[in-house]
């Protein structure tokens, strides 16, 4: 038996013309179904699409009009809001995660098990389940009506903390001991020994945090008190209900909301895959 099992189906062993055609058909269908709608979105953003039935992949005429009209509607401002939220939220989330992970992975202290359990349990408490009281708490602490209200709550994310903790556990203790013998304190050990070695994991929690925060919908919805604070995903709904705005403009704005997360994913695909398979559970 010649080897040829690089997959469960063992397809790659066969090279006849029928097999090749079958493969091309399967791949085309898969790409058409999953990437097709996003491709249609991209094409529609650059062509004149007055109503949904005139969306066409082939017959459109190239135009930038949709974008200029979207900008007239303040889409750049919404995009800026989105970037502020994702930038601030991600920085906070990463800082909080590595700090917490340092304790969980490299210290031993009373109640550690309980803390770990509490952090795990937050995975079962997403914004959705807490929406009603969360909106009250947000207004109690004066975070409604400000982008800060969308940033602070995403600052602590159990997934990030757990991935980071798992990673830090594997850093050899000898390195830390050496630094301590040289008289380094905790902050020093954390900053110049542990942190540099965590760079691969930073990529993982970075890309996951980015897509997670970019995808936030309910939290911004609870926080925003008027359109000034809308992130781009929130603004899409307003644009849609705006009678004077055609489908093309909506698509242009949607494309701007799509690209950052897609580009981030493409740029950091390897880290993303590692997070997907090593983090096991994300909530």
């Amino acid at each position, binding site marked *: *038996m010649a080897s040829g099992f690089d997959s469960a189906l063992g397809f790659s062993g066969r090279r006849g013309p029928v097999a090749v055609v079958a493969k091309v058909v399967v791949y085309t269908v898969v790409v058409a179904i999953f990437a097709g709608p996003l491709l249609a979105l991209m094409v529609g953003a650059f062509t004149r699409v007055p109503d949904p039935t005139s969306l066409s992949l082939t017959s459109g005429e190239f135009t930038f009009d949709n974008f200029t009209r979207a900008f007239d509607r303040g889409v750049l401002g919404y995009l800026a809001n989105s970037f502020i939220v994702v930038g601030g939220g991600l920085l906070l989330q990463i800082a909080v995660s590595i700090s917490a992970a340092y304790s969980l992975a490299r210290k031993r202290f009373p109640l550690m098990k309980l803390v770990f359990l509490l952090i795990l349990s937050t995975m*079962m*408490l997403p914004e959705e389940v807490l929406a009603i*009281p969360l909106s009250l708490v947000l207004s109690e602490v004066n975070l409604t009506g400000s982008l800060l209200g969308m940033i602070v709550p995403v600052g602590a994310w159990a997934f990030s903390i757990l991935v980071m903790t798992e990673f830090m556990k*594997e850093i050899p203790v000898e390195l830390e001991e050496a630094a301590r013998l040289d008289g380094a304190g905790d902050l020093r050990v954390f900053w110049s020994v542990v942190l540099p070695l965590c760079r691969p994991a930073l990529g993982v929690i970075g890309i996951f945090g980015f897509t997670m925060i970019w995808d936030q919908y309910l939290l911004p919805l609870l926080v925003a008190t008027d359109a000034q604070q809308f992130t781009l995903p929130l603004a899409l709904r307003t644009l*849609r209900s705006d009678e004077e705005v055609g489908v093309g403009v909506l698509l242009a704005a949607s494309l701007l909301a799509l690209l950052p997360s897609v580009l981030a994913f493409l740029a950091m695909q390897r880290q993303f895959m590692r997070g*997907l398979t090593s983090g096991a559970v994300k909530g």
Partner: protein
Amino acid sequence: MQATGSGATATAVRPGRRPGQSAPPPAPARRAGRFNVKAALIPWLFLAPALVIFAMFKFWPMAQAVKMSLYEVRPYLGDRWVGLDNYRQVFTDEDFLAAIGHTVVLAVGQTGGSIVLGMLLALLLEGSAKHLWVVRTAAFLPTVAAMAVVAEVWRILYFPAPDGAVNSIFDWFGVGPSQFLNSADSSLLSVMAVGVWRGAPYDMMIFLAGLAGVDRNLYEAAAVDGANVFRRIWHVTFPALRPVFAILFTLAAIRGLRVFTEIFLLTNGGPDGATEVMMTLIYKLGLERGELGIAAAGSMLLLAATVLLTVVVRAAQTRSSRQVS
């Protein structure tokens, strides 16, 4: 069966070395005998930011929800204790019962659909060739797109006129035209399809990680024994993927019931409440109609169901893994 899909269970397998917990810092060690407050505080200082944020935005709201669910919440008038009345109302109210039904149908449909389709995709797209990598990446894009974008695109593609995008494609096969989101008959199914479209590629990637860990020699051995493709997948691949299924079911248990954004944007519960799920109903009750107590009781129910489901899935998983080893 020793060869389990390894990749996906990386965290379950702890590294043999457990560093970090030995080696007390030298300085405190020299001052032995005296309780060192500073050393005891350090772990808590590093944990503080996370714990403060969780306390404020997870545990405090949760405590509030428990309390609110037992009161008739009346702004300015003071809350009135009603005991379990809110819960009784949730369980007897027709809208709520319908919403619970839709939530369960949607959760089961999306989870099942995503797992089956994701498995199929993983089997079809497994391999190390470059073109497969391209196809996989393209197929994965729906998963990283923001839900709001996905919803807007599908609203347009689902346009219910005969020359709407999806209807045009249906026409090639002599199906339709369908009203999709606009008709009570097809709206829940249409929403479910979007969920599967976005969920299947995610499951595919997790399956692929599992497939990568299956011992190739087992396939060879099965082939030598004369097993065909189906028997090979059934007897070699599926058992090896057991931990992957466990992960996907756990994820589904946590996520399945709390669906909000896609409904809110695709149908907002309509038409005629045909797609109203728990979360959209809770949102409307709490934030639009001011029925905070009932909304809180609904949230508690949702939370209880999530916790219960997670525990059940976990238990089933430990039992089945004990049977394997």
